[in-house]
């Protein structure tokens, strides 16, 4: 194992820890920070992963870090600004079951990912289990949060998981596809930011349970 792949493993492990951190954060600002850190960490991975750092890969890496680590979180914070209600999830005393479920999902991913048929080069790497764990954490985040911002964060974590999965194919995927995915993400976060802002303005709260009023 050379230094670059060691660094990749470390980054991916840190991303898995950030999954659990995001699940444990109740304040939206903390959650945004965790997700931004995760995006930025994972953005560095493609540059380290390639045997010969091509310009295109470096471009992809820097683009991802920029979008996920800076632009998207900035937009989300902007959307939250001027919120009339506190941006906090309902504080619960007690064991954060979300973190426990996330840990269980991570453990299951670590346990069962090696059984999947993957390329010999990827065997033993943390990327595949981390991708499953991150996707599961994204679903959990979306499922356990009642505020709209939490669900956007869940979507972002989910996308990070897909991104990790995509890294397994990084060598063979054309750059244009990656850039397209990045653009999609940016657009989605943009829309979500606007929606959040509008919900905020209309309902003075970000509780999605109140959106039930719109049903009829």
């Amino acid at each position, binding site marked *: 194992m050379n230094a670059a792949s060691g660094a990749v493993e470390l980054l991916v492990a840190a991303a898995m820890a950030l999954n659990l951190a995001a699940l444990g954060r109740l304040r939206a600002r903390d959650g945004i920070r965790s997700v931004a850190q995760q995006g930025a960490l994972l953005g560095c991975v493609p540059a380290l992963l390639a045997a010969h750092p091509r310009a295109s890969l470096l471009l992809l890496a820097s683009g991802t870090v920029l979008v996920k680590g800076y632009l998207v979180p900035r937009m989300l914070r902007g959307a939250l600004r001027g919120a009339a209600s506190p941006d906090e999830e309902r504080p619960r*005393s*007690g*064991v954060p*079951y979300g973190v426990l479920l996330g840990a269980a999902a991570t*453990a299951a991913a670590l*346990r069962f990912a090696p059984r999947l048929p993957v390329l010999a080069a990827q065997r033993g790497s943390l990327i595949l289990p981390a991708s499953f764990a991150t996707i599961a954490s994204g679903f959990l985040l979306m499922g356990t949060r009642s505020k709209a911002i939490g669900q956007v964060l869940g979507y972002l974590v989910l996308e990070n998981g897909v991104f990790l999965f995509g890294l397994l194919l990084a060598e063979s995927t054309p750059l244009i596809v990656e850039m397209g995915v990045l653009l999609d993400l940016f657009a989605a976060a943009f829309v979500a930011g606007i929606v959040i802002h509008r919900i905020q303005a209309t309902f003075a709260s970000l509780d999605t349970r109140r959106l039930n009023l719109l049903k009829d």
Partner: protein
Amino acid sequence: MTSAGDLAGALLALGLQALAGAAVWLDRRRAGGAQRLACALTLSGAVLGLFCSIDGLIRGLSGTLTLSGRLPIGALRLGADPLSWAFLLPIFAVPGLSAVFGLGYHARADHPRGRILDSWMAALAASMGLVVLSRGAAPFLLAWEAMEVSGYFVAAGEHGDPGIRRAGWVYLVAAHLSSLCLAALFALLLAHTGTTALSRTAFSALPATAAAAAFLLALAGFGLKAGLFPLHFWLPGAHAGAPSHASAVLSGAMLNVGLYGILRLTALLPAPQPWWGQCLLALGAASAAGGALFGLAQSDLKRSLAYSSMEHMGVAAMAAGLALLGAATGHPGWVALGVAAAVLHCWNHSLFKPLMFFGAGAVQRATGTRSLDRLGGLAGRMPATALAMAVGAGAAAALPPLNGFVGEWLLYLGGTRALTGSPTMPLAVPLALAALAFTGALALAGAVRIQAAVFLGRARTQDAGRATEAPAGLLLPMALAAGGCVALGSAAPLAGPLARVAETWRPGLVAEPLLGTALAWTSPAAAALVLLGTALALGSSAWLRRRGLRRGDTWACGYAGGGARAQTTATALSRSLVELFGGVLRVRMEGEPPGRRLWPGPSRIESVAPDIVLEHGMAPLWRRLNRILGHLRSFQRSRVQAYLAAAALTLAVLLLA
């Protein structure tokens, strides 16, 4: 003595115990002579039975006895081997202790209707013994049914209290479900092998799928009896409602029979699969952790103890699961340590749990309540009871050098052996060990909670303040059980008998060297720890006396007000833990808190901690089933013509098919 002699002795002992049930009717309602005679009969049965069982266990004797009689479901065969002897020990010991305790606790002069209870307790003891000695479907099912029915009357028969009546009904439902599973089990056996004998040769013909089905049926039937999560729903109510000396038998002897069943069936079933062991490990882990957690939320002393029983049965089931996993994957070390841990933990539980129920009975007798939040300060008034309960609580929390620790430690040792010795393993083992660690910490909290709420601090009510020490007749069985808890803490001499049991469970196994070396340190270590503790305690109290010991008000940061009710109650002590696991426990507050109105009047608030499986699982399930099956009622209440038509239709279908 020969195996036949031991078996005959054990049967005679059971007969003596049953005779005690008849003897209580010899004199008038309020005279105590018959009760003393019955106690003497039970005790002599217990001594004889213990002698035979220990003899049989130490020498590893086994033998069978056919009482002829061709019943429709097979011969009336009885038999005993070390596995039976091991489980006969608590069946003889606990009713014996309980009879002595009952003389003082449930004296005939105060409880004229106690004769009925005494008879049912005698029937319970005898039928439990017969279950363990059965070697075929006929005696097994008969004894099982007798045990279930007498268990019902012991748990709920005497009471007019509606809550206890309801708990009795729940018990009866669980008991019937359990019997149903076992009847299905024997039917399955009969269908596949043509015999209902409980022997290895009979079971060897069972195909793999039938063996798996038999395992699941046994797990459900015996799991219900042992109170494994989520089949424990009947346990807290039934054990809390009975008089304390009856609770001691229900929890110290009858729960073991469920575990005996699991061990017996898994010993006989051919070709165990790894998932059987994993199932048992998972169920045991859930029961252990769940029992410890639910117990923390209870404000009734005996309900809390009942949940602790569920916890310890879970620990024993985990040990059995480890053994089963070892048998399925070919690891004799896991088998030896697992079986030994399961049996030893059952023995331990049969010592410290009756002890704690006796203590609860003594406390209830002295104060008239078993609500933890209304007691306190009894250590000064009932020092001997407090000391005995402290030993029981320490053993229940698995603290060295007491016996509870050795049992759980053997399970840890087996699990660690699995972790260190085998390159791959199912996740069930480390998960079960994690659950065990969590259980241990919670059990400590539960033990501290009970001990502190009942005995420490100041009395919270006048009744608690007027308590007096229990009479010698009540203290004697407690002292015996507490002595047992301390004695079994040095478990080195038990290696041989436990090895006999493990070798019976899996023939061809050589367990004695492993168990001998594993347990060898316990005796010197326990002795050293007791000596160290005694020396330091004596030394420090001598030094305190020399320096001068003055008494003053408790300082409490200078705030002397508040009185006894300002002390930390049991509810307050576990409040933060209960809130931490609030998502599982679902404790709710009922009543109105004070201070909502401008001039607050008297108000009451109560924390209610119902059994989550009963309240959120079983009760809705039964309501739904009742609604669906209610439609069938119309058939039951239909007219004769409709019955005739149905019979004719059935006949026609059968003839045509």
